[in-house]
């Protein structure tokens, strides 16, 4: 039981981060505005959580210009996918006990 708790990933403890990772798991990539709409959180809030997840190398950020506006898209890394799956398994095991 203790073992499962240690498998829970601290990086995914906030609700917003869980949301970001869940969305990225099922979408090839997602832009900032769509992510914001789905999570219903403020710009700054999302940006800081995304930055933390990028630092952990769970996702990559791509910025490009669409006309004059910048568009930012996020993609999950294979490492991030593995980490999130592990976290999900740990959650499931904890509830199964």
């Amino acid at each position, binding site marked *: 039981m203790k073992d499962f708790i240690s498998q829970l990933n601290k990086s995914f403890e906030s*609700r917003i981060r*869980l*949301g970001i990772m*869940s*969305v990225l*798991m*099922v*979408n090839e990539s*997602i832009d900032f505005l*769509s992510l914001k*709409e*789905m*999570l219903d959180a403020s710009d700054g809030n999302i940006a800081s959580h995304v930055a933390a997840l990028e630092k952990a190398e769970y996702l990559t950020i791509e910025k490009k210009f669409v006309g004059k506006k910048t568009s930012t898209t996020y993609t999950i890394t294979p490492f991030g996918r593995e980490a999130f799956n592990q976290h*999900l398994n740990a*959650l*499931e095991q*904890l*509830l199964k006990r």
Partner: protein
Amino acid sequence: MQFKVLLAMDQKEKDYLQDLTEIRSMMEKSSRFISLSGLAGVFAGVFALAGSISAYYILKNFYIAIWYENDIIQLSKDLVLHLFLVAMAVLFLSLFFGYYFTTKKAKKLGHKTWNKTSRLMLINLAIPLFAGGIFCVSLFLHGNLGLIAPTTLIFYGLALVNGSKFTLNDIKYLGYCEMLLGLIATFFIGWGLWFWAFGFGILHIVYGISMYYKYEHKQ
């Protein structure tokens, strides 16, 4: 003391469960457009039935609707125009009410009507429909009129199966039904209008009502 620890555990467990629920809902919400309303289906079905009935009477009242000229089938221009207007009215009314009920449901769920998932759903619906539409024009120009109604059913079914990946999964089974009905109809040329009325009318109404009771009635 021990009691307190147990309580804390329960709380923790609730949090994990909530986490999992949240993850599941996020995955679903970000990859599927779930605001599609069952009532949209019911209204589309009713309009399709009304359209079929008026098409039936239009066809009945045209005595010299079809004749042959140099072995090529000819249609009365008036008849084609009448049927075209009926079809357009059905299409327009269905889309209008479909949009109306879907935005209403989206608002209730707190979702947007126009977002990534609805775009994906529409694009995936449109691709087989576009191919089917061109194919029907070709059938019309070659005089294969009897195959037009079955073809619309088949391609509409394919479109639903294709689009169902981005919306409520139930749509897939409606797609299979429409496809099967269209394929059966290809063996009963001349009954096209009846198959069409059943596929676009009755099936839409039945499916719309069942979807409405499954997803919207309770909420």
